């Protein structure tokens, strides 16, 4: 593996590098240091892990179990305040799966949007990274600062800004289109499923590509120049060069970027919920997250909402399983 940008501490410790061995030792984690001193004391790592594991257990794992338990109950306001169980077996799941909108609206919206936004974010981010890598220092600094500014925009803020830009009556988008004569009357872009999600996509890509661009750029800068030059001599075209030399070098960078984008893009909630009609009145734009929220906190059907949440989790875990296998396989090599 080529570690492109390693942790380069700004501490006055030149000996660090000089003393560094050639890799592998540290990765194994067995040799030397604290571990080496007393291998027998197996408690030490657990001591270090304890606080983190405690937090994860109490606030992520147990809730995960609980959401499963809730999903098997008719869990309403009464149950939630008294804590009394009210088991109904798989009834919630049966109802969800029997809802025609699940198949025609909610699942396609969730999965389709996640796929589009992951592909869009990663492709666009990579393209930007490539462009940045080819720029001189000045323009690269200017552009990456601009990218940082986009990244810094909180999701809620970004959503309202896009809503404002696309506002039907007074938004700048309709205004410009009408001035150019491309549009006769103002159009409300939020009522149509496709245009609604196009705006969400724009929002999510705008918010998400900076991470990809910055990460891939750092990776690109780590690709040895000699390799590129060698390819150049062979007369490889720049596209071929990119895919045959650069991409394999950055395989892990891409793995990380893709999986993180997947996680983040599946979690799109505010970006849909805060759009006009996104909170439930426009049924054609519901996704699993909003549906779950609306059913539980709006309709007091916490059990039903939990079942939807479980479905969403399973969907992501399936993707995770594939990913974890890939990552661990890489690590074993």
């Amino acid at each position: 593996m080529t570690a492109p940008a390693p942790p380069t501490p700004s501490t006055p410790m030149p000996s660090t590098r000089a003393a560094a061995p050639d890799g592998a030792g540290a990765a194994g984690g067995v040799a030397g240091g604290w571990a080496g001193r007393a291998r027998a004391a197996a408690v030490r790592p657990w001591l270090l892990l304890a606080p983190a594991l405690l937090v994860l257990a109490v606030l992520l794992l147990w809730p995960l179990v609980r959401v499963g338990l809730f999903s098997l109950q008719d869990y309403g306001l009464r149950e939630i305040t008294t804590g009394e169980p009210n088991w109904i077996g798989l009834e919630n799941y049966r109802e969800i799966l029997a809802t025609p909108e699940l198949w025609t609206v909610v699942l396609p919206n969730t999965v389709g949007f996640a796929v589009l936004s992951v592909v869009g974010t990663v492709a666009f981010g990579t393209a930007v990274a490539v462009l940045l890598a080819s720029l001189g220092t000045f323009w690269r600094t200017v552009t990456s600062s601009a990218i940082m500014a986009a990244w810094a925009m909180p999701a809620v803020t970004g959503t309202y800004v896009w809503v404002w830009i696309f506002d039907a009556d007074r938004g700048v988008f309709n205004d410009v289109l009408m001035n150019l004569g491309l549009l006769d009357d103002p159009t409300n872009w939020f009522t149509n499923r496709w245009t609604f999600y196009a705006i969400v996509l724009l929002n999510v890509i705008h918010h998400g590509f900076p991470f990809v661009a910055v990460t891939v750029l750092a990776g690109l800068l780590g690709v040895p120049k000699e390799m590129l030059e060698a390819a150049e001599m062979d007369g490889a075209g720049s596209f071929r060069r990119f895919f045959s030399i650069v991409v394999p070098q950055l395989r892990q960078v891409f793995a990380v970027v893709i999986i993180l984008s997947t996680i983040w893009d599946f979690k799109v909630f505010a970006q849909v919920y805060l759009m006009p009609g996104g909170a439930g009145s426009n049924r054609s734009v519901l996704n699993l997250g909003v549906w779950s929220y609306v059913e539980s906190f709006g309709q007091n059907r916490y059990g039903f909402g939990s079942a939807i949440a479980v479905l969403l989790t399973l969907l992501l875990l399936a993707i995770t399983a594939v990913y974890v296998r890939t990552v661990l396989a890489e690590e074993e090599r």
Partner: protein
Amino acid sequence: MSATRTPPRAVSRTRPGPQVLRRGGRRSPLRQLGKGVLVALLLVFTLFPVYWMLNSSLDAQAGHTSSFWPAEPTLEHYVFVLTEGGFGTFLRNSLLVALGTVVISSALALLASVAVARFRFRMRTQILMLVLIVQMVPLEALVIPLFVQVRDLQLLETLTGLIVVYVALALPFGIWMLRGFVAAVPVELEEAAYLDGASWGRMFWSVLLPLVAPGLVATSIFGFITAWNEFIFAMTMLGGATENYTVAIGLRSFFGVHSNDWGAIMAASTIITVPVMIFFILVQRRLASGLTAGAVKE
């Protein structure tokens, strides 16, 4: 792709000089023009929403005419938002929550990452897997049980409750990322320090900590963003405790009442974006190196 975490070689590669991907020195004017156009388009896409937000926030006519610069420049929206909207309080709350999240999650993640990077013990792989998996769990899936959980802890409607939740959200990513940094610190250094008679604590503070600092910067930024941007938990858990609202739901609540007063909404949006933006541009370089290093050191 074996784990060759070799600082010396890697360092030589960090500064390969600009223009890595340019064809060896060829500068056709056409290419330059094309590149210029691409950069311009990119800048427009990236900055237009930011510009539009600023523009509307400074325009007394915002919402009546759309003009590409403030038709009637004013600061009234800002005055209104800060005095009537309560955004001073929201900013304070968000800062507290974000700082609390950053400090706690970084500390816990660092300890845990030392464990998984420095020790080989039974179930190490399982724990790593667990960390990866919990990171995949969608937030919305946890809203209901976490709400109940935080209620049981008597922390609803408090900033502490939010911090606790955000720490849990930021922790897996932090562990995952710091692991690479800790692993990259040569054990010999610790050995040497130990032989010099350094205590464990000194070894931690003077050897390990400085070396993983860039990683901590990156995890901190992630913790910060998580806390600053988070919406759904803040919405459900803070309920009616307006005095504890964070910027995200403060903005939503403001929007609920002034939904067509776009000048004011954009002013409020600017107020909650600018601090993060300045922070980001300042830490830009460190963020980039931290991210990649963490991401790639699998």
